[in-house]
């Protein structure tokens, strides 16, 4: 449990863009490095967190819960939110002063391609729990296109993914 807390606390501080940015690293740690669960279980846990209402950061609570019980869930969520929250609290107080700072705009531009790369990676690791399979590629591709090109509520896209999963797997 201490391992989870320490690792999630570090992830917290690099999670610019929220959960999607750190999703590949989190999956790498939980599945590849620690072997706490399989890639398939990881995607299922993520699916539950997506299907439930609420911030997708709750996936951290489910990972902690799976590894170390309910207490592990609270510890993982707290560890992931705590350091970032402390930083937000601190920075929130100084926000007005740095609003027009040139370096902030440079940094913001620099972060766009990086977070795009991270988020696509997060999508990729979630969409390949069974290795690279055409069924997964189809579901992920249709979902991505639907989100990008239409204004349909994401919940319907998730429901469609569930239906395709039922038909294809």
């Amino acid at each position: 449990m201490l391992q989870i807390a320490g690792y999630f606390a570090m992830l917290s501080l690099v999670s610019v863009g929220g959960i999607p940015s750190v999703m590949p690293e989190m999956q790498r740690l939980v599945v590849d490095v620690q072997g706490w669960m399989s890639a398939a279980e990881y995607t299922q846990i993520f699916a539950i967190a997506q299907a439930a209402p609420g911030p997708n950061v709750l996936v951290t609570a489910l990972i902690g819960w799976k590894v170390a019980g309910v207490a592990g869930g609270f510890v993982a969520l707290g560890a992931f939110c705590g350091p970032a929250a402390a930083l937000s609290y601190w920075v929130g107080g100084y926000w007005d002063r740095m609003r027009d700072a040139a370096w902030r705009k440079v940094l913001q531009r620099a972060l766009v391609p990086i977070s795009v790369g991270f988020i696509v990676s997060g999508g990729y690791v979630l969409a390949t729990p069974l290795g690279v399979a055409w069924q997964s590629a189809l579901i992920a591709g249709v979902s991505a296109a639907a989100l990008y090109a239409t204004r349909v509520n994401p919940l319907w896209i998730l429901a469609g993914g569930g239906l395709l999963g039922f038909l294809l797997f």
Partner: protein
Amino acid sequence: MENVPPAPPKSLLELYLGFLSIGARSFGGVLPWAHRVMVEERRWIAPADFAEVLALCQFLPGPNVGNVSIVLGRRWFGPVGSLVAFTGLMALPLIWVFALALLYADFSSNPAVRAVVTGVGIAGGGLFIGTAFKLARPLARKPWGIALALGCFGVIALGRVSLFAVLPVAAVLGWFAARKGVI
């Protein structure tokens, strides 16, 4: 009604209940509901002000709307406000996600249920990819930006290199590219 200027919540209870109602209804994403409750229903904050706080929170690490609750809670009631807003936001979704996970544990040996849940997870991965493409729109005419994004994808998703190794390198490259104005 339209001319009434926005006013911050009057009590910690009001703050808590507002964030509780955001969390309770946030099927399919918290952000739309955060906007609806704070800007439209309770009129705690002006739209432009909300957008600015959100931009800050997207720029900071951590869950975006979670950070919004911290920043606005602080603005209105100090540290206690941050704590109250954040717990209000998380309380109900946390209960529901555990309930759903327990329910799923009972049924996970059923292959049909497992197939559906796997499909939902993969679709969720697809949503990430779709979101990334939306964020990438400003990069359309910036080949260096696209190259940096693809590079990050290659080493992280395909090469399975740790984020902690990639981020510093990518940040330095991005910083110089942004300074030169090519991204």
